[in-house]
């Protein structure tokens, strides 16, 4: 077995940033991955998950931050010296080589230690050799057997089906016995049935080999099925790191809740500990530690919302059935309660227009801090009654002099979205639009990468270009201290125990050694011989 390092962390990202033309593709990502874990980076396209994986593989260099492998700093190590292998999104099998030679590619290049020798000066010198033909043949055949493609060695890669190519790509990576296998949306190109089969196979492989898998996908179901740990990302930032169960049951914020599975997200107010108000009704809940009357998001999974008879003493509020759709094993029922839309799953059908009662267990109400309460921008006064917001001068009401550093606040309700980009003062792209029961909360990314939150009555299409307008009297201005530094948000890995967390925290203060590729090869060799001994 491999010698256990402190904490048994095999890969750690420390405050990793990746910036393309001023835009953060990955923004302050810190993540620790344990040996043997199946970790999934999950998020919508453009969230930075693939960039993160490519930085671990070495194809992209982080703009700042460190990547640590087994206690060694590999941030500057080129990809061919890193002890990781990748399964590429479109497989990237070499078209000029057959299946056998594709798999043998890495083995043919590998140098392994071959005993030591004492040279004339009396020093012990490490000898190296390449794998022999027979060794390569044996390893490749074993790899082919592992992916059930035993008789395909001589085949041309272009003659294989998508699923078979996928297997070859996995075999090509695994044959090198990497300690970490990186998988970049490997099942994206397969059809649904094939994907389910490969999911099980990959999980099985992970269990048998005991190596670390880092898996990138945008498919939340895939992530929930396969992973030990899920890292949810959005707009380059890690949103939550937790087990699949925790991600589903206790999403960290409205985005995670919306992205993982169906749910109703409502705005509410935390009246006091264990008491929350939404839909003009006060509910009992199990959360505490919020500020008094703090605005919060409430998340309710459709299967947790129980529909009762209107006069049932258990029902907490009354609602009207808006629609009912048969979904095979359940009905998806949309309810309206005090002008808020709620979604429920129920095995019974209800008539549209029927008045029903609603019951939710206190435990099933998931209360979350709002990601942001108000749009806040640090900027300067640029003239008489003028303030700069995202590169454009906005009219405002102020008596501050030109050049004063100020903090601008704009309420979500006061951000006006215009359909035509040219009608707005500044243009932006719609990043997301989440339904909150009675309105949509849209996130708009301006051209200089500030994200405006806006509450609107309409759903805005993701990726659309829109304009933003703000009425002068709605721009709230207060002076700010230029030396004040914004507080950085740190996402805690919820799968770690307190001790582990502390150990990681401590190790962050130690400058890691630089990675030495020769040492790695020796270690690898020791590992191989151990395995042979086990047989």
């Amino acid at each position, binding site marked *: 077995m491999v010698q256990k390092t402190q904490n048994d962390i095999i890969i750690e990202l420390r405050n990793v940033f990746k910036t393309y033309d001023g835009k953060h593709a990955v923004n302050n990502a810190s993540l620790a991955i344990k040996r043997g874990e199946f970790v999934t980076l999950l998020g919508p396209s453009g969230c930075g998950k693939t960039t993160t994986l490519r930085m671990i593989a070495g*194809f992209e260099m982080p703009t700042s931050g460190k990547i640590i492998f087994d206690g060694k700093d590999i941030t500057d190590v*080129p990809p061919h010296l890193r002890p990781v292998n990748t399964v590429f999104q479109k497989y990237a099998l070499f078209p000029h080589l057959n299946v056998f030679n594709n798999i043998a590619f890495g083995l043919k290049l590998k140098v392994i230690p071959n005993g030591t020798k004492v040279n004339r000066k009396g020093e012990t010198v490490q000898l190296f050799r390449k794998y022999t033909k027979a060794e390569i043949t044996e390893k490749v055949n074993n790899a082919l057997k592992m992916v059930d493609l035993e008789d395909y060695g001589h085949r041309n890669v272009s003659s294989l089906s998508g699923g078979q190519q996928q297997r070859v790509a996995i075999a090509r990576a695994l044959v090198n016995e990497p300690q970490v296998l990186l998988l970049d949306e490997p099942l994206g190109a397969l059809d649904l049935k094939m994907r389910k089969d490969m999911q099980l196979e990959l999980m099985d492989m992970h269990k048998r080999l005991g190596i670390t898998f880092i898996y990138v996908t945008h498919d939340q179901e895939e992530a929930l099925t396969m992973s030990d740990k899920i890292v949810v990302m959005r707009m380059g930032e890690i949103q939550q790191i937790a087990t699949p169960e925790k991600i589903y049951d206790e999403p960290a914020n409205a985005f995670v809740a919306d992205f993982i599975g169906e749910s109703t997200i409502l705005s509410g107010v935390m009246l006091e500990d264990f008491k929350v108000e939404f839909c003009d009704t006060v509910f009992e809940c199990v959360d505490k530690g919020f500020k008094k009357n703090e605005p919060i998001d409430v998340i309710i999974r459709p299967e947790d919302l129980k529909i009762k008879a209107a006069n049932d003493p258990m029902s907490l509020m009354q609602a009207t059935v808006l629609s009912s759709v048969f979904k095979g094993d359940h009905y998806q029922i949309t309810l309206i309660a005090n002008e808020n839309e709620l979604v429920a799953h129920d095995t019974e059908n209800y008539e549209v227009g029927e008045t029903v009662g609603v019951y939710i267990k206190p435990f099933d109400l998931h209360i979350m801090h709002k990601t942001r309460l108000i749009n806040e921008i640090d900027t300067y006064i640029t003239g008489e009654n003028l303030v700069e917001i995202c590169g454009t001068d906005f009219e405002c009401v102020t008596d501050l002099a030109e050049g004063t550093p100020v903090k601008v606040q704009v309420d979500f309700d006061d951000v006006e979205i215009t359909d035509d980009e040219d009608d707005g003062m500044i243009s932006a792209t719609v990043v997301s639009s989440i339904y909150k029961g009675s309105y949509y909360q849209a996130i708009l990314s301006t051209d200089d990468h500030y994200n405006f939150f806006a509450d609107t009555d309409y759903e805005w299409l993701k990726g659309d270009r829109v304009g933003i307008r703000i009425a002068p009297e709605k721009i709230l201005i207060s002076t700010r201290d230029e030396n004040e530094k914004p507080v950085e948000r740190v996402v805690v890995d919820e799968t770690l125990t307190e001790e582990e967390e502390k150990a990681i925290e401590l190790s962050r203060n130690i400058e890691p050694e630089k990675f030495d590729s020769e040492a790695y090869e020796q270690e690898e060799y020791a590992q191989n011989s151990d395995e042979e001994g086990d047989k």
Partner: protein
Amino acid sequence: MKKKFKLTKKVFSFPYILFLILFVIVPLVLILVNAFLDSDKNLTLNNFKTFFSSPASSIVLGNSLLVGVITTVLCLVIGYPVAYILSKMSSGKILVLLYVLPMFINFLIRTLATKAIFIALNVELGMGTVLFGMVYNYLPFMIMPLHTTISGIDKSYIEAAQDLGADKVTVFLKTTLPLSVSGILSGVTMVFIPTISTFAISQLLSNGKIFLFGDSIQLSFEQNLYGVGSIMSLVMLAFVLVSNFVMNKFNRNNDAVRRSLW
């Protein structure tokens, strides 16, 4: 009943077919017929005897092939690195145009200018200058297909090779080079075939000292030896066909990577 004329896609190919018949098929037939006629238009096999029995003609043919091979090799050696570097550069597409730009000038003018420069520099005209002229003229034909092929290679192959432990040199030798074979073959064909049949460049840049196959064909026709000239043209045609066949054979072995301009 009269068939009505219909404007189908097929119709658009008629002008080209007509052109092909008039300027390719008919001349080929004329060459073939001329090969069997003497100067008085009588049927004869003497032309073949004249050509194949004279040692001079086989020396010229050998010279042509040698010049063709050397030019092609030089073009490949010079052109590959250029195409490779250009394909790695973001502005590569524009820079390739610069390499093609000299072709906008008539090649005779270019060759005469080259000659004038050599004379001004007091360089003796001979094999060296001929080869220079050849490479200068045909290099773009090598760079263009190579650039197209190399820049068309999916970056993920390179990354996959790196991921599997290949350093820069190995990545090049084991992926980029094999994946650009189709470009090399197009380039070689585009350079070799015109060089073995070229004339004027050799004459001008060697002051008539070096006589290539193309020159002797030209000479035969100038001296009204249509028969011998025709036979030489046929021999040339045979070489072109053979080299094309060989190239295609190579390319077929690289089935999966056939992706290039030509």
